[in-house]
């Protein structure tokens, strides 16, 4: 085996994340940003790039950029500038994208992620504002017909560029989740991955472990889910490792992730790279920000996930793991807090929210905002368990009913007669009956065959229609059989 093949590499990853902003109207005109409208229903002369039209900035976009910039500890530029990025493509009606180049609105920030239980800072190089392009629709068996849908053209985006601080696909995924969590907390994006609200391009390079100099990088585009970021990066790292081990240099190029084949392929080489001929956008004045407005925005930022997790640990006694999981999604975290507010035990509430509820929501592809019940419903269910009215197993049935119909757990238990039988007198009667019906097994047990105990419990549960409180049954049985 050659020395080369035993070589250890370390991975260097930087992510460029594009997130679609949750504005009602587009970035430079008044067209709606509504998703899935009929093709070109939301396209006016401005987003169609007709001759003579001009862009006018939607100031919500600036506000959203500043919110995210502040939340990621960025320096906010008080006079940032738009620039034109020139290239030809049928989905780009003006043949340039209005973006930002050398004077982006946010620079030099960071976010913190957890790596193996330890905090790690990931640098944010810059965050800038830009418009989305349209969409090409290919039709026909041979895909010979291509249509242009400009509904998405001019929809506002933020591009968040990280430093090459990520060292593994898992870190990249965690980082992407963190950004997702932040933009949804700040309500600057709906963060709807299914609708393409968040897409990432990854720059990846390898270098011999322990060395400082960066290796040649490739860029992988079209990563639009948390799962894909891990898969695409893992694939690309392995591909580069094999190239290097085989003694072949890495070629600087842009690659495209194909989720179906779970592989990346070359989109364009360095030689084919575009010269975008950036220059300041003459149709738009500088984006000037007043220091007082900045303070105003800072004052209205919501509690962010890191602070919330800390509070959950310190005030509610949750583990770091549970707290981090709960705060990842703002709406989930808020629902959890509401359940606790209704008097539920925090630990139990956390288990329900992260366990059964999360599973149901995942199965139905919905969110806590679309629930049929309020936080009080879940708190009531947790109370019923706590006071022993229902068993853990019954609770599943009650929860299902609560989830499906929104019916109050207490009413449901009453109506269905589901409450647990904890009355010792009634249970003793049942046990006596079971023991007298099964003298053979009683003899076996008394003869030392401990396993038969489970049989008696089962029989009592059966006799009670599943309602017997198992803890009490166990105690009573032990006493009677002693």
């Amino acid at each position, binding site marked *: 085996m050659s020395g080369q093949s035993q070589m250890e590499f370390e991975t260097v990853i930087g992510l460029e994340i594009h997130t679609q902003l949750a504005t009602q109207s587009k970035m430079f005109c008044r067209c709606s940003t509504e998703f899935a409208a009929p093709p070109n229903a939301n396209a006016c*002369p401005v987003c*169609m*790039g*007709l*001759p*003579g*039209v*001009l*862009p*006018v*900035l939607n100031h919500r976009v600036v506000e959203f950029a500043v919110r995210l910039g502040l939340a990621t500890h960025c320096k906010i530029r008080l006079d940032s500038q738009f620039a*034109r990025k*020139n290239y*030809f493509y*049928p989905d780009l*009606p*003006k*043949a*340039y994208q209005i973006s930002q180049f050398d004077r982006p609105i946010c620079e030099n920030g960071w976010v913190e992620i957890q790596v193996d239980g330890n905090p790690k800072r990931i640098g944010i190089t810059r965050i800038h504002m830009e418009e989305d392009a349209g969409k090409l629709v290919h039709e026909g068996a041979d895909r010979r017909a291509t249509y*242009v849908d400009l509904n998405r053209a001019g929809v506002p985006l933020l591009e968040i560029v990280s430093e090459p601080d990520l060292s593994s696909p898992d870190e990249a995924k965690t980082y992407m989740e963190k950004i997702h969590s932040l933009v949804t907390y700040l309500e600057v994006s709906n963060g709807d991955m299914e609708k393409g609200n968040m897409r990432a391009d990854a720059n990846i390079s390898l270098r011999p472990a322990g060395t400082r100099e960066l290796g040649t990088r490739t860029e992988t585009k079209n990563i639009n889910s948390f799962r894909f970021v891990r898969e695409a990066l893992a694939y690309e790292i392995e591909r580069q490792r094999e190239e290097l081990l085989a003694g072949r240099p890495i070629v600087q190029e842009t690659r495209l992730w194909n989720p179906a084949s779970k592989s990346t392929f070359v989109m364009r080489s360095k030689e084919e790279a575009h*010269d975008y*001929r*950036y*220059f300041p956008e*003459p*149709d*738009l*004045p500088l984006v000037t920000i007043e220091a007082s407005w900045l303070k105003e925005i800072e004052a209205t930022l919501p509690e962010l996930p890191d602070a919330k997790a800390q509070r959950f640990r310190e005030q509610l006694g949750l583990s770091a793991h549970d707290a981090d999981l709960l705060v990842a999604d703002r709406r989930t975290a808020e629902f959890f807090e509401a359940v606790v507010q209704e008097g539920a035990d925090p630990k139990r509430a956390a288990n329900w929210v992260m366990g059964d509820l999360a599973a149901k929501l995942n199965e139905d592809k919905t969110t806590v905002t679309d629930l049929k019940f309020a936080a009080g419903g879940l708190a009531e269910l947790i109370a019923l368990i706590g006071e022993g009215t229902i068993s853990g197993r019954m609770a599943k049935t009650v929860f299902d009913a609560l989830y499906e119909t929104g019916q109050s757990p207490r009413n449901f238990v009453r109506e269905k007669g589901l409450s647990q039988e904890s009355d010792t007198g009634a249970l003793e009667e049942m046990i006596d009956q079971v023991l007298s019906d099964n003298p053979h097994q009683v003899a076996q047990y008394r003869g030392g065959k401990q396993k038969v105990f489970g049989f008696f419990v089962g029989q009592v549960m059966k006799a009670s229609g599943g309602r017997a409180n198992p803890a009490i049954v166990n105690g009573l049985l032990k006493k009677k059989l002693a």
Partner: protein
Amino acid sequence: MELCDTPLHLLHERRVKREISTEEIARSVLERIESVEATVNAFITYDPGPVLDRARQADGQLAKGENLSPIAGMPIALKDIFCTKGVETTCGSRILKGFVPPYDAAVVEKLAAQGLNLVGKTNMDEFAMGSSTENSAFGPTRNPWNPQCVPGGSSGGMAAAVAAGEALAGIGSDTGGSIRQPAAFTSVVGLKPTYGRVSRYGMIAFASSLDQGGPLARDVTDAAILLEIISGADARDATSSSRPVPEYARLLKTGAEGALKQRKVGLIREIAGRSDLHPEVAAQFAENLQTLASLGAEIVEVSLPGLEHAIAVYYILAPCEASSNLGRYDGVRYGLRTDHSENLERMYKNTRQEGFGAEVKRRIMLGTFALSAGYYDAYYNKAMKIRELLRREFAAAFDQVHLIALPTSPIPAFRLGEKLDNPLQMYLVDAFTLPANLAGIPGISIPGGFTPGGLPLGLQLLAPHFEEQRLILAAKAFEDATPYHLERPQLG
């Protein structure tokens, strides 16, 4: 003097007194078009159909005693750079042949609100790139003062139409002199407002940081009337100014007498000795300075050393912006698309190859080159720095003087074809007009005499940002003291 040769404001006074009707005015204009358009070729699109109806409509309103805008029903033209809803808009280019905008430019909306009677869309250098109107895809326009000569450009069709009586007035656009230079070549008034005074929405972009719409008219008063109508903030143009619009027309009601009394008028030292200044232009300009002095102005020398770089700066920045602005003409959504391309890239290339003329291609290439990686700092960035320098030099000069006076063009109208093979020589024609665009300040060209051979010359006045009133008052004082604006070309 025939009605179609008369200033609009005088016609308006006469129709209000019922001496004439708007219909008679419109007929006079239409008849003139009939007789001279074959020679002049001022229009790309010309539709006489509704012109008389709209004139009669204005007469109807007048009969009912309604208070009418001076322009209501009066035959007015627009440079074919302004988008007009339902009316083909070509910008002088083959690539926009057949393009019918679904919307009106802001300027058109404002004129329409005052009763616009659009007689036609006038000829221009393709995408306003040129100084002779020879770069039009629809044939050159000829100068009504001498059909062997160009009318200037790029608003040459507009200037020629007003000079020849084919329209009473109109709106052009000025990126490096495209209103003022043709106004000088045809002895009409052309005013380029401060950048941001008039909305650019719907005015097809050439160089976005330099383009500005403005009036071409028979005299200063008509120009003031039109400027007042088309000026003002527009929510659809982020570069338009929200400064209130002065009542430019009312300004002249009380006359411009004394407007130049004890005013300092700047004479640019760097221009006086230029070798490219035509002796006949220099001689007439000296006479015009004397006229200004006789009106009470004190002529003061000012220095603008940055001026020598103005042409270089302009011919970097304007093509840079143009190369980006013209990317959208790709055959995908509107206008020309060649139908014999085997793939998308060929379609782009064939469409642009066939759709654009030589000068437009030249400037797209210049701009694309100057913006390319590795050249940006040497060209675009350096040009922007000198532009800023020039802006400061103008500001410093205006600390000393009220106005600056200079010839509109270093040469009189030249013969058709004379400069077509030498683009650099053509670019030099803009030397005295484009500094105002680079600085963003307003400028006016007014009839300022004739060469011994009978070709018109223009006197140009420049003022600080948003001081159009100064220009208008001084120009009116000069106009009142000189006979040049009363001359009309004799065609056919």
